[in-house]
């Protein structure tokens, strides 16, 4: 895909809100479009997959497999991100990511992104700030899930 088209897609993605054109340009140079069919594994537990994905369309499930079953903990969709751990060093994937329907996404090289952060601290700050925001949201949502608020008994509501 042409860089220009990539820039347009990046600009519209919520993750890049607040990023300036030069930053978006840089990211476009590291990005390429990917497509997945239904029920495809984007990455598995333990993978040292170095890609960070910005989802354009389709839904992906984050799962953990245990003997005899697979447990789905979260789903991400258009406008969201996948694989933020690629932006941190040395982190293997804790979950597997499986598409629930055909997916279109922009994949960015995690290592190259980190390098760019090192060289351009202004860009790095923005990226990390955005990353922290997402992680904070996920943490909050996860904690709420843990509360199991719809459970029938034994939970003190307040």
């Amino acid at each position: 895909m042409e860089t220009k088209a990539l820039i347009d897609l990046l600009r519209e993605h919520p993750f890049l809100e607040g990023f300036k054109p030069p930053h978006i340009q840089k990211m476009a140079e590291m990005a390429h479009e990917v497509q997945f069919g239904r029920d495809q594994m984007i990455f598995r537990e333990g993978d040292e997959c170095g890609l960070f994905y910005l989802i354009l369309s389709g839904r992906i499930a984050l799962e953990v497999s245990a003997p005899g079953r697979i447990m789905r903990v979260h789903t991400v969709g258009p406008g969201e991100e996948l694989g933020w751990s690629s932006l941190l060093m040395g982190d293997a994937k804790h979950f597997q990511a499986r598409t629930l329907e055909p997916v279109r996404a922009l994949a960015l090289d995690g290592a190259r992104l980190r390098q760019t952060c090192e060289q351009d601290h202004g860009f790095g700050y923005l990226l990390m700030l955005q990353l922290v925001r997402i992680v904070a949201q996920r943490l909050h949502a996860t904690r709420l899930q843990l509360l199991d608020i719809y459970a029938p008994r034994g939970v003190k509501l307040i």
Partner: protein
Amino acid sequence: MSPTAAKWRSALARVTTVDKETHDTFTLSLEPADGQTLETFAPGQFSMLYVFGVSELPISISGDPQEDGRLTYTVRSVGRATQALVSRQPGQTLRVRSPFGRPWPLEAARGKDVLIVAGGIGLAPLRSVIYHVLRHREDYVRLMVLYGARSPTDLLYRKQLAQWARLPDTQILTTVDYGGTSWRGQVGVVTTLFRHLRLHSAQTVAFICGPEIMMRYVTRQLAARGLPESQIYLSMERNMKCAVGFCGRCQLGPYFVCKDGPIFSYEEMRPWLDRHEL
């Protein structure tokens, strides 16, 4: 307060149907028995239902307000009294005192987008709102329903939701806290559905019902997204024995949930929602 809130009636009612929604939740339909009349209601109001020999329970009405002479309730079995209710068989009778409470302010939502956010059994009192909006479709702009449940097997009214999703200017989004592998929908708390909406905040009225924790984080997020506090409404719940403001049990701060509520604006509730053990 709506004038209909002050007039209530006591009547014997016969169970016509009992539909199993989930493993612990059932929808009962009642019609008047012995030539008596069942009072009409406004969405958001509740009835006191009595099974012979068991205690009276406050249950939100979840049916179509324009369906004359019939009352519908979706009840979750969480203890002895609710179990007695859901185990009624068609043909058996209940005593109904109805209706009570301040209803959802549907007038305030006219000409605006209606955003319904429901958690778990909270969808039951909000279903009456959906019925009303669909019957008076020209009075409202968009209808958006965000619904979160514990797991796919806990989702209520699945067929109806699927039907409504196909209607124009109507968005029905569901999510579950725990999804199994056959669930291809969203997994995550109900606030994760917000990013799928294009909200015109000033033009939206939100009606929220669910566990109090859920209502707290939903109202905060909606306010953060620019919805005015006077356009966000919640349905609160407290222990009730009388439904007429005398037993004192339903007090929440200065409010009696049975007669000042159960519907409150976020503006009214905000000083009290975050207080511990109020």
